[in-house]
């Protein structure tokens, strides 16, 4: 029995342009185009890549208590957000495990002057779970929660040339839009767009949100504007290698109900001084030091580490690989793994079981590639 997969508005475009379509989180998405994952990765690092990420979800939280409500739900202190800020945060369970990681945008409510609302961009694999999570906690808050995923299209345009190319298309001066903030504009004559200077590649660039019916116009419009700048469409394989190099977490790998943001070393996204679901568990974990932590490693023997492969020390399994691959930018065979804290120091020698083989590896510093916002 074959799976019935959802299709984005650009599905036919991908197929017509040689996209190799695969299932992902219940959607049929392009894993690569004829360019290939390595060249697509390179293009995003050197010029710019355009990503169809419409499978991701978007949730609006409006109302007089929107700020208090969102602040209860996420790890980051959104009361500190200025209008048009875009910040990384997590939804946690009471025990500190992760429901999802997301971006929170603070936007002006066009319907109620002087009242802000919150726009949440969540993972494709957790879309329904997140909507249910948010709605289930809304009782007692004067808020309206709306799942706007179906009517909202999402694209990412990432790479060193992306901001300047995007700037040619906007009325807003994007040189004045700082990292981790957003702008609202009309592009291609009549398409209202939210542009977040955020991304999942470690390069500068934008994530775009706009009404879904304009998907083809925006997609083709950006590719056309960038046709002399080596802008290419980029599939999910390169999206994964691009986020892997700056060690950005992928839910289900570096984050899960069993992996907390403290263990995943994301304390920058946690505001311990405010109350939120999971705060007490996370504070305890931070103060007592977590039992296991996320590390980076490099293969010393030849091989490709992949998620799920055991990490061994003295012939005992001490953890497992959360993500691993050949890193195209650094040309090294790298990985991330969850290991006990006492074996997490840089320089620790471990072994990775790669199918029937044991390959030596060494724990190294993360990130493997410094993201643009830190350079």
């Amino acid at each position, binding site marked *: 029995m074959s799976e019935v997969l959802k299709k984005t508005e650009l599905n036919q475009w991908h197929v017509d342009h040689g996209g190799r379509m695969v299932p992902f989180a219940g959607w049929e998405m392009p894993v690569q185009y004829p360019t290939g994952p390595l060249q697509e990765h390179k293009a995003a690092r050197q010029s710019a890549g355009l990503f169809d990420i419409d499978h991701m979800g978007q949730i609006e939280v409006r109302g007089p208590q929107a700020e208090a409500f969102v602040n209860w739900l996420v790890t980051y202190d959104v009361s500190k957000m200025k209008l048009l800020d875009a910040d990384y945060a997590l939804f946690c369970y009471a025990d500190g495990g992760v429901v999802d990681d997301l971006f929170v945008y603070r936007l002006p409510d066009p319907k109620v002057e002087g009242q802000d609302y919150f726009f949440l961009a969540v993972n494709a694999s957790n879309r329904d779970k997140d909507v249910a999570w948010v709605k289930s906690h809304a009782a007692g808050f004067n808020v309206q929660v709306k799942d706007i995923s179906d009517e909202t299209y999402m694209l990412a345009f990432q790479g060193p040339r992306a901001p300047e190319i995007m700037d040619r298309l906007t009325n807003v001066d994007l040189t004045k839009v700082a990292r981790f903030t957003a702008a609202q504009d009309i592009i291609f004559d009549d398409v209202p767009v939210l542009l977040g200077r955020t991304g999942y590649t470690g390069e500068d660039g934008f994530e775009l949100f706009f009404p879904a019916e304009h998907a083809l116009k925006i997609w083709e419009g950006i590719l056309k504007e960038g046709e002399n700048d080596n802008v290419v469409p980029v599939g999910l394989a390169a999206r994964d290698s691009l986020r892997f190099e700056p060690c950005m977490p992928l839910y289900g790998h570096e984050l899960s109900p069993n992996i907390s943001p403290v263990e995943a070393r994301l304390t920058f996204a946690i505001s311990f001084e405010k109350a939120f679901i999971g705060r007490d568990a996370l504070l305890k974990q931070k103060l007592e030091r977590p039992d296991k932590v996320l590390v980076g490693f490099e293969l010393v023997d030849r*091989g490709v580490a992949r998620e799920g492969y055991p990490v061994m020390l003295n012939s005992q399994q001490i953890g497992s690989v959360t993500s691993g691959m050949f890193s195209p930018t650094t040309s090294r065979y790298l990985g991330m793994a969850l290991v006990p804290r006492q074996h997490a120091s840089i320089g620790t020698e471990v072994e990775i079981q790669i199918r029937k083989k044991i390959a030596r590896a060494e724990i190294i510093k993360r990130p493997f590639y410094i993201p643009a916002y830190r350079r």
Partner: protein
Amino acid sequence: MKIDKDARYSNEHEWVRAEGDLYVYGISDFAQDQLSDIVYLEPPEVGDSFGKGEPIGVVESVKAAADLYLPMGGEIVEVNEDLVDAPEVINTDPFGEAWIVKFKAADAGEFEDLMSPEDYKKFTEEEH
């Protein structure tokens, strides 16, 4: 899809060519296209012996790992070490520079058991 007319083929999309007393082995253009960008090759070692159809190594692409099988029984006499350092050549020249090993056959008759180029072409067309 390129097909080398001097080679014969296995069901696993591998090719073998006869070169004097030895046989040369690699994976086909169809195989490299299916795998997409190749990032790692682990061939066997010189001196290793295998029966027909035995796994001899691994080739890995960005997203997947695939076992390599020797379609004829034999002993490895040469390994393409240059390819180990540049596995991406499998994508660009699967029948030429990307030969993986050369081997001595245990039974030369097994070469005739492999698919002819014409039969292999038909096989790849059915494979969708």
